């Protein structure tokens, strides 16, 4: 049987308060007030599409054997790299075998659902694909998109075996319906009138595709238990359900009020939220919209109760911090260029040779364990740090990314450059052994104390703006 084997999600901790954004623009666009309710997920300065995808992947793979992943795909229309495979960076961070396939999908909002369809079809040939979808779109300050959108990532492990939701079928329609567009190299998209998009797009293209899907699968509209329409505009999902003959209670929460529209990741994110609560026998209809429409029909199986617990959408939603500093949002997203001071000018050009040689240490946080003494250390070195036996060449790989750690010492540094001062860092000690000096992230002053439990997260270390190269590493984050 083929289908969804596991699901995962990641939502950044910061939640930008929409009322603050609307108020900032009220002098020019008072109408934005009507959209200024609730909150939207906002990425930290050290998060991007790749780092969020890594977290969603980790969530998805909780309690599962990572060697069952044959390929990894990353769908996004806001990837950090146009030519340095983004899925490939995620593969390194997950410490997957080099014999893992990887590919990026982009170009439009259907990238997420299209990647799922391709993976679901490839599953029957025996391939398990970890389908990731991740988005941090930039919008012009004062635009509706700025208020409506959110940053998040979703993950689906697709393959064969005992899926938690079996693949019944899919249908795809492709039409060059340009409700909005963004040319390569442009920062912001350009959209047309929403009334036209609703009438000619959502109500015709989506409904047409849904009807064809149901007809070919032999499943009646009334039998759909969960309808996933990743459009956060009020009334669109309900209107589609009504016109398609799907029960109103099947319409799943679009997460518009507390996350925002996460673009090509949204359908995957909503599917993850749905699977958290779905029961065996439930039929799920997933829709993707963007220059056409993808429709995927899934049926939940008994295996869903056997899936090891994961955070999922609800877990990440619970880990939240309201953000009322709109300037901080603008600065983190490169929408204003604040004075950063001379310390920010330091050039940390990355030699590609050293990154490649050390990619397991740097991207996967793999340390070393001495096979002679059992000493665990980071990073792995030729000569062990053990004071009683400095054996040479005896260390084996010892992954540390999934280990819990505790703070041994720390400081909050106001002097060193940080995009979000002060810079928190300190010495952490891993459960089971091994310690390292680590940057902390997602901290509040109150959370930091000696003994605090921390987990490692994959984050941006710094960006070489001169050459456009993102350096990643792992940071310690308080366990929420």
């Amino acid at each position, binding site marked *: 049987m083929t289908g969804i084997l596991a699901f995962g999600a990641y939502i950044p901790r910061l939640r930008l308060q929409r009322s603050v954004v609307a108020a900032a623009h009220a002098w020019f666009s008072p109408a934005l007030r009507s959209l200024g309710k609730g909150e939207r997920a906002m990425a930290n300065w050290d998060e991007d599409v790749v780092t969020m995808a890594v977290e969603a992947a980790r969530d998805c793979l909780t309690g599962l054997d990572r060697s069952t992943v044959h390929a990894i795909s990353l769908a996004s229309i806001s990837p950090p790299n146009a030519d340095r495979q983004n899925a490939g960076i995620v593969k390194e961070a997950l410490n997957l075998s080099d014999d893992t396939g990887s590919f990026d999908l982009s170009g439009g909002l259907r990238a997420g659902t299209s990647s799922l369809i391709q993976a679901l079809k490839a599953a029957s040939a025996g391939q398990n694909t970890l389908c990731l979808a991740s988005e941090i779109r930039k919008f012009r300050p004062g635009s509706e998109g700025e208020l409506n959108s959110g940053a998040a990532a979703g993950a689906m492990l697709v393959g064969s075996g005992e899926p938690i939701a079996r693949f019944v079928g899919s249908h795809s329609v492709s039409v060059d319906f340009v409700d909005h567009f963004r040319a390569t190299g442009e920062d912001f998209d350009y959209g047309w009138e929403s009334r036209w998009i609703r009438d000619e797009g959502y109500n015709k293209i989506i409904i047409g595709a849904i009807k064809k899907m149901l007809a070919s699968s032999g499943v009646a509209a009334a039998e759909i238990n969960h309808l996933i329409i990743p459009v956060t505009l009020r009334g669109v999902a309900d209107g589609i359900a009504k016109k398609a003959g799907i029960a109103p209670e099947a319409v799943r929460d679009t997460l518009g009020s507390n996350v925002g529209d996460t673009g090509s990741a949204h359908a995957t994110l909503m599917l993850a939220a749905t699977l958290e609560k779905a029961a065996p026998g439930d039929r799920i209809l997933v829709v993707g919209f963007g220059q056409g429409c993808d429709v995927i029909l899934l049926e939940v199986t008994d295996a869903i109760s056997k899936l090891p617990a994961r955070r999922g959408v609800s877990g990440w939603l619970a880990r939240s911090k309201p953000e009322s500093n709109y300037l901080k949002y603008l600065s983190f997203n490169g929408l204003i260029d604040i004075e950063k001071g001379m310390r920010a000018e330091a050039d940390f050009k990355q030699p590609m040779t050293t990154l490649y040689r050390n990619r397991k240490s740097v991207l996967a946080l793999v340390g070393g364990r001495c096979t002679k003494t059992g000493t665990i250390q980071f990073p792995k070195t030729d000569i062990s740090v053990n004071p009683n036996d400095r054996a040479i060449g005896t260390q084996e790989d010892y992954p540390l990314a999934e280990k819990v750690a505790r703070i041994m010492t720390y400081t909050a540094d106001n*002097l060193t450059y940080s995009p979000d001062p002060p810079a928190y860092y300190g010495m952490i000690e891993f459960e089971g052994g091994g310690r390292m000096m680590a940057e902390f992230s997602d901290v509040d002053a109150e959370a930091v104390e000696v003994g605090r439990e921390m987990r490692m997260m994959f984050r941006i270390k710094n960006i070489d703006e001169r050459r456009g190269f993102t350096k990643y590493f792992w940071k310690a984050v308080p366990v929420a």
Partner: protein
Amino acid sequence: MAKGIRDKVAILGMGCAKFGERWDADADNLMVEAYEEAIADAGIETSQIDAAWLSVAFDAMNIGPSGIPLATALRLANVGVTKVENYCASGTDAFRGAVYAVASGAADIALALGVEKLKDTGYGGLPVRSRGTMFDMVGVVGSAPGNFAQLASAYRTHHGVGAADLKRAMAHVSVKSHANGSKNPKAHLRNVIDIETAINAPMIAEPLGLFDCCGVSDGAACAIVTTPEIAKALGKTDLVTVKALQMATSNGWEAQGSGWNGSYSTPPASQRRAPMTRRASPTRASSSV
């Protein structure tokens, strides 16, 4: 078994530039300022210097690699000049080189000079620079205050000291240093401060406030060393001789092993005694040089 260097090396002359924000001076001006005083104190000619050690802790904002800048600034007699770079121990390390050269019998008179021109950095504190390709990928680019500040949280946890008590205890150090500086005409900072000023100063890296951190200065200092016999032959009396000199470089055990509790700066140097001398206590490690 090493016999140690006790009483094998004597100070022939010492010199020191005026420390401070020396907008008026380049590194070579500072070197000459310190050297002028030292060579006059020694009462010798430049041509009598057999070997030299140059120390610079932060080359990012200074005179560049190699010993050439010292040889050029002082117009040494084309003798060997070793450039030493070992962070804050650079000066001690340069002195060590000069002292060992004389103690070994390889040189009659040797010179050690340290210079720093940090005020060309353009901002307060130490210049941000690479610490090597591996560190740049996995290390924390913290400030110097931030790195040392971490001792505080581990210390108070280990010894059960409250944060406010520790802050007050630390403040005494700066009050003492400022008092000393006020008596030294060559000091950069010559103002006297009180405990409350130190405690309430702006926070640099928790819990270190402004006065808990070193200022950053331009300056230079120079030592000319020789054997006690040569010093006496040159008319020196009441000699200051080197009894023992030790240095220790961490092998990474604190940050990578599990033995360090994060609450102290280990002075293993103090535990490495020169043979046939009394064991120096940890608190007197710095005075054994």
